[in-house]
C-alpha cells in the first residue's frame, strides 16, 4: 500500500523539478563576507576585560564587593528575562538572557556601585536599567541610552545617601578584618575631597598617603574605581581584540586632560592637575567600557571622535564647576542622546562618491 503511493507521486512529479541543491543557490544582498563575530562573542570578551578589575575589587573591598557584584548580575539577568518575556516566547527570551549583554550590564552596574550598597539598590538599578533603559525601547540594539547608566543615574538622583557613602579599600585600614571588611572606614573619594576644598587642601589631606599607589591600586569609591591599573589592562585587551575602537577613549581622555590642564595653569591652587583628573573617578571605566557601547555611540570613526570629545567637555565641566564631584555618567548619557545627530552629521561618503565641489570642476 505504502509502496504504491510512493510510485504514484513519483510519476506525477513534473520532470523539470529535480531536487536542486537549493541551499547552494541562495540569493541575498550584501554583505557576502561575514566576520566571525556575534553578540555573545563580543559580550563575553567585555566580561573577560572586566575580570581583572572585578577580582581586584573583591580583594580590596572583601566579601561585600562579592555580594554587590553577585546580586547585581543576578538581578540584571532576572529582569532581562522578565522583560524579554513580555514580547517573546520562553525560548527566545531565554536566549536573549544568556547572550551576554545582560551579564555585561550586571558586571558594569556592580562596578558602578559602592561596596556597602544594600541589596535593594542593585534590584532597583537592574529594574530601571532593563525595564526603562533597554526593553521599553525594544531590547538590545534599539536603546538610545546606555541601560547601565540609566539605572545608575536613577539610583544616584533617587538615593544620594546610599549612593555616596564610600568606604575606603581595606588596604588602607589593615586593622579591620580584611576578608569581611565589616568595619570599613567611611572615606571621601579623591574627587569628593577635591570638591570640598580645592586642590591645595586636597594635597594636605592626602599628603600622608602614597598617592600613586593609592590611585593605581586601592582607591576608595565604586568597585570599578578601585584600581586604575586593572581598568587600563581591561581597556587595552578590548582595543587589542578590536571590540572597541581607539577614537572614543582617546578623544574623551584627551579633552578632559586639555580642559583640566588649562584650568590648572590658570589657578593651580584651586584646580587639580590634569593627571589627577585622568586617574580619579570613573573616567577610565566610562571612557573604555561605557562610552564605547556599540549601541549607543556613533558608527563612523569621525563621529566617535566628536562623541568622545563631547563626553570630555561635559565631564570636565561638571567636575570643575558642577554641583556633583563626578560627571562621567551624566556626560555619557547626554552624548548618547546626541548620537543620532552626530551620526547624521558625520555620515561617511559612499565609496566612489564625488564631492559636490569637485564634481563642478
Amino acid at each position, binding site marked *: 500500500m505504502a509502496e504504491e503511493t510512493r510510485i504514484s507521486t513519483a510519476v506525477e512529479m513534473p520532470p523539470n523539478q529535480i531536487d536542486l541543491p537549493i541551499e547552494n543557490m541562495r540569493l541575498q544582498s550584501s554583505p557576502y563576507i561575514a566576520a566571525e563575530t556575534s553578540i555573545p562573542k563580543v559580550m563575553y570578551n567585555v566580561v573577560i576585560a572586566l575580570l581583572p578589575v572585578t577580582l581586584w575589587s573583591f580583594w580590596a573591598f572583601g566579601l561585600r564587593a562579592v555580594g554587590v557584584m553577585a546580586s547585581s548580575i543576578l538581578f540584571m539577568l532576572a529582569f532581562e528575562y522578565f522583560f524579554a518575556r513580555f514580547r517573546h516566547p520562553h525560548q527566545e527570551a531565554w536566549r536573549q538572557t544568556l547572550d551576554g549583554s545582560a551579564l555585561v550590564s550586571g558586571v558594569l552596574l556592580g562596578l558602578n556601585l559602592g561596596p556597602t550598597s544594600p541589596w535593594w539598590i542593585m534590584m*532597583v538599578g537592574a529594574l530601571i536599567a532593563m525595564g526603562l533603559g533597554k526593553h521599553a525601547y525594544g531590547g538590545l540594539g534599539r536603546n538610545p541610552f546606555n541601560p547601565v547608566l540609566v539605572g545608575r543615574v536613577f539610583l544616584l538622583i533617587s538615593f544620594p545617601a546610599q549612593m555616596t557613602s564610600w568606604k575606603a579599600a581595606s588596604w588602607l585600614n589593615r586593622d579591620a578584618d580584611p576578608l569581611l571588611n565589616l568595619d570599613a572606614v567611611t572615606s571621601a573619594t579623591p574627587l569628593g575631597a577635591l570638591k570640598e576644598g580645592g586642590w591645595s587642601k586636597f594635597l594636605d589631606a592626602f599628603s600622608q598617603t602614597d598617592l600613586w599607589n593609592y590611585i593605581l591600586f586601592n582607591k576608595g569609591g565604586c568597585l570599578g574605581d578601585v584600581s586604575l591599573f586593572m581598568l587600563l589592562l581591561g581597556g587595552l585587551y578590548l582595543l587589542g581584540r578590536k571590540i572597541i575602537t581607539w577614537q572614543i577613549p582617546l578623544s574623551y581622555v584627551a579633552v578632559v586632560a586639555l580642559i583640566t590642564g588649562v584650568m590648572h595653569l590658570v589657578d593651580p591652587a584651586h584646580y587639580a592637575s590634569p593627571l589627577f583628573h585622568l586617574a580619579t573617578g570613573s573616567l577610565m571605566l566610562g571612557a573604555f567600557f561605557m562610552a564605547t557601547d556599540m549601541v549607543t555611540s556613533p558608527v563612523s570613526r569621525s563621529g566617535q571622535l566628536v562623541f568622545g570629545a563631547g563626553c570630555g567637555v561635559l565631564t570636565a565641566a561638571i567636575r570643575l564647576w558642577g554641583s556633583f564631584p563626578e560627571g562621567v555618567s551624566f556626560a555619557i548619557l547626554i552624548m548618547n542622546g546626541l548620537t543620532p545627530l552626530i551620526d547624521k552629521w558625520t555620515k561617511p561618503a559612499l565609496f566612489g562618491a564625488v564631492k559636490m565641489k569637485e564634481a563642478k570642476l
Partner: protein
Amino acid sequence: MSSAKKTAGSVFKNGLIVENPTLRMLLGMCPTLAVSTSAVNAVGMGLSATLVLILSNVVISLLRKMIPEKLRIPGYIVVIATFVTMTDLALHAFFPDIHKALGIFIPLIVVNCIILGRAEAFAGKNPVLLSAVDGLAMGLGFTSGLLILGMVREILGNGTFFGLQVLSASFPQVIVMILPAGAFITLGLTIAAANWIESRRKNA
C-alpha cells in the same frame, strides 16, 4: 463621536475615558507634569480646571451664535480668562495652601489647551446642557489623569498618600519621582498602561 447622536451619557463617557485629555489626547501636559508631585496638588489643579471648563463651556455655548467666526478665539479667551481670574481669587481666599503650591499654574489655566480645545471643538457647536456635561467629563478626565500621577509620585517619592504617611520611614524614598524626571517616567508608564487597556478593549 461625530456620527452617533450625542447624548449626555455618551458625551460623559467620551470625556472621562475614550478621549481622556491627559492619557488619551495628551493635552495640558504642562500642568500635568508640573503639579502632580502630590495627590492634593493634583486634585486642586484638576478641580480648578474642571470648574473653569464647565463655566466657560456653558457661557461659550450660550454665546456661540453671537461671536463672529473670525473673532472666536479672542472671544473664548476673554470668557476663559474671566473664570480663571475668579477661580484664582477664590482659591487664594479659601485654600491659600493649595494656591501657594500650584502657584503660576492657576493663572496659566487661561492658556490650557484642554479648555480652549473644548471651547473650539465642542462648546462652540453644541447646546448648553451638553456643553456643561462635556466640560464636567473632560475636567474629571483631566483630574483623574493628574490624580493617578500625583498618587504614584507622592507614594514613591515621599512615602505619603494625601499627606498621610503610608510607607514606613525606613522605606527609602525614591527622590527622582518628585523631580521632573519622575513626572515624565510616571506619565510614560501610565500612558503605556492606558494604551494597553485600550488595545485589550478593542481586541475583546
